[in-house]
């Protein structure tokens, strides 16, 4: 998940257009995302590469085709591709990893904002594209046909900016480790 390093300097005269409702992503839209770029760090490339991965290579197009995740592209009113988000359901076994019933949880496989839109539009954090997109993902998790209490994501432990974003903006808590990534979790149950 990437919303990491410092945003690049922006043209002060640039107009930042609002987002329109997200577009469902599938393999047919791979040409649309061919130039998607989240930055040059390994964990930033990983986020972009997952979206751009050709069919049959374990990326977003395959996840959508297999029904393992939904992926959405976020664009502005003038058609600029700003970022993407994804949402699925994962299963964890406890206490016996082989035999116990699985606990289902919502999961965000990846979420990324293109470098030039990072930390934009200028102003309050909650008006940034990253916050708007992530809020949209949370709302989609709450609208999911099968409701699950927990939402999990995996983030590179070196991606401090992203970790702070999830913790400070949304209240995610650290939740152990999964296959080399830091796991973070959010309780979606509404406050009573």
């Amino acid at each position, binding site marked *: 998940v990437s919303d990491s390093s410092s945003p690049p300097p922006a043209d002060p005269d640039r107009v930042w257009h609002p*987002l*329109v*409702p*997200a577009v469902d992503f599938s393999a047919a839209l791979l040409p649309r995302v061919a130039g998607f770029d989240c930055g040059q760090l390994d964990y930033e490339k*990983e986020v972009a590469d*997952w979206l751009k*991965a050709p*069919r*049959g*290579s*374990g*990326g*977003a197009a*395959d*996840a959508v085709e*297999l*029904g*393992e*995740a939904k992926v959405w592209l976020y664009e502005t009113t003038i058609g600029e591709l700003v970022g993407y988000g994804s949402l*699925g359901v*994962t*299963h*964890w*076994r*406890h*206490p016996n990893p082989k035999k116990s019933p*699985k*606990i289902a949880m919502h*999961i*965000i*496989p*990846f979420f990324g904002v293109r470098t030039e839109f990072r930390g934009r539009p200028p102003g309050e954090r909650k008006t940034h594209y990253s916050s708007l*997109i992530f*809020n*949209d*993902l*949370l*709302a*989609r998790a*709450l*609208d999911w046909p099968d409701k699950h209490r*927990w*939402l*999990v*994501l*995996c983030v590179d432990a070196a991606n401090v900016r992203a970790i702070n974003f999830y913790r400070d*903006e*949304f*209240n995610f*808590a650290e*939740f*152990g480790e*999964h*296959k080399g*990534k830091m796991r973070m*979790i*959010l*309780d*979606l*149950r509404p406050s009573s």
Partner: protein
Amino acid sequence: MRLKSDPIPAGSEVGPMTTLLDRHRTAVAAQLDAIEQTKAYEAARDGEEGAANGEFAERRGLVESWIALCTLTFALASNLNREWRRRIFRGVETLGPGESDAMRALFERWDRVCNNEPVRQRLQEFEASLAAHGEKLRGVEEYRACCQQVGEVLAGWAAPVVSKAVALQEGELSEEDVSRLEALAQSGAARAKGEPRRIR
């Protein structure tokens, strides 16, 4: 994925789902054997005798059953293929040698048995004679959709792979994770802030 008749490699662990998928694949193969042997599509002839003719109605029934069997078998093969791919994508199963070829072979066989030139020709003629009496062959649209899909499945065939997003790979919760989860559930320390809004 092994067939039941295949020897189990020494030291390998066969999970319950693998066994289920093996059985499923064997069942699809057996279904294709049955379809191939019955050749019921051959009843699709002499439609000129008219829909009122008893023998014709019987032949029509045979053809419609044969079509339904082809459609059902295609659905079974597609479900099997999908489930197998999902399990590898989630990291629950690993792809064994020859498995992709074996799965692809099921679809190639379906195409050979259910969608060959004599079948297409017979059905086309039979449909034409039914149409002359204002009748249609039941289930033929679904069958034709399968014929189209099998071409797409084979043309786009690629061996399944594990998800590049580790988050989509299934995992286990340790005792520590569960304690943490219980603590978070009790304390509300990870409760979502505010009410998220969709972009409209």
